[in-house]
């Protein structure tokens, strides 16, 4: 299900004019990200990377709490 949206993310870039590029940047690269198993899909990101992201964020939270 996510494969077509990932392809679409690249396609939209090929035809984008400069006003669209900032819109793409804001909507696809920024904003609140939800991660973890509850996420069924995220445009332009395959699920394996979502799972990786969830795991890495958790790792970062744990290590950030450790005293230097």
């Amino acid at each position, binding site marked *: 299900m996510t494969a077509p949206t990932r392809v679409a993310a690249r396609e939209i870039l090929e035809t984008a004019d400069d006003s669209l590029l900032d819109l793409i940047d*804001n909507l696809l690269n920024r*904003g*609140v990200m*939800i991660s973890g198993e509850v996420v*069924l899909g995220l445009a332009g990101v395959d699920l394996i990377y979502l799972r990786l992201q969830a795991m890495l964020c958790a790792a970062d939270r744990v290590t950030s709490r450790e005293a230097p």
Partner: protein
Amino acid sequence: MSRVYLYALLSGTPACETGVGVCSERLRVVALGDLVAVVGDVGELPAPTALTLRAQDAVLRRLCAAVDAVLPVRFGTLVADDAALAESLAPRRPELARALGRISGCEQMTVRVWGEAPAAAPPPVAVEGGPGTRYLAGRRRAREWIHRVPELEPARRGLADLVREERVERHDRPPLLATVQHLVPRGAVGRYLDAIDGARAGLRPWRVSVTGPWPAYAFVDEAA
């Protein structure tokens, strides 16, 4: 089977109609304690196209017009149902509430910095010690440098009163050198653009282009 598509997080329910979403679906709100999520029920993930991206941005702008603080959610965020949404957001509610406080009453201006080469870094301070020590010192400096935009220095004085927060991403891919996001109070756009225009000559050889105002897409996380 319908799933829940997430648009934004707010600190309260908007008083007025929120209209329709990217798939022409009716929008509704989900209460999550002190947060409110604006969602739509969709069949499948919408593909990112000019149409759908503009539609999502339009939803966010309507919400911004209705309430002071809107946290945009990344395009294409799909979860199974309201319970899954609540579960994933529950541990983050304090941080999200803080983010809403930060961006309340503000909007985003996006500045792209262009040039043939980045501003020269100051010469490295001599570090004593072996190769590992010098390497670590170098990495420390490199990390500090990632969030700096010395190219914009001449514009900073004119912008100082207007910029609440800044986020920097260096690309160093000439001519695209860096992207700077500025959080400015609503209504300050005119003064902001005037300040940038006034500084353009002083910014040479670097050039800037500005777009906005945008909903606060780049300010959902705390500064690095």
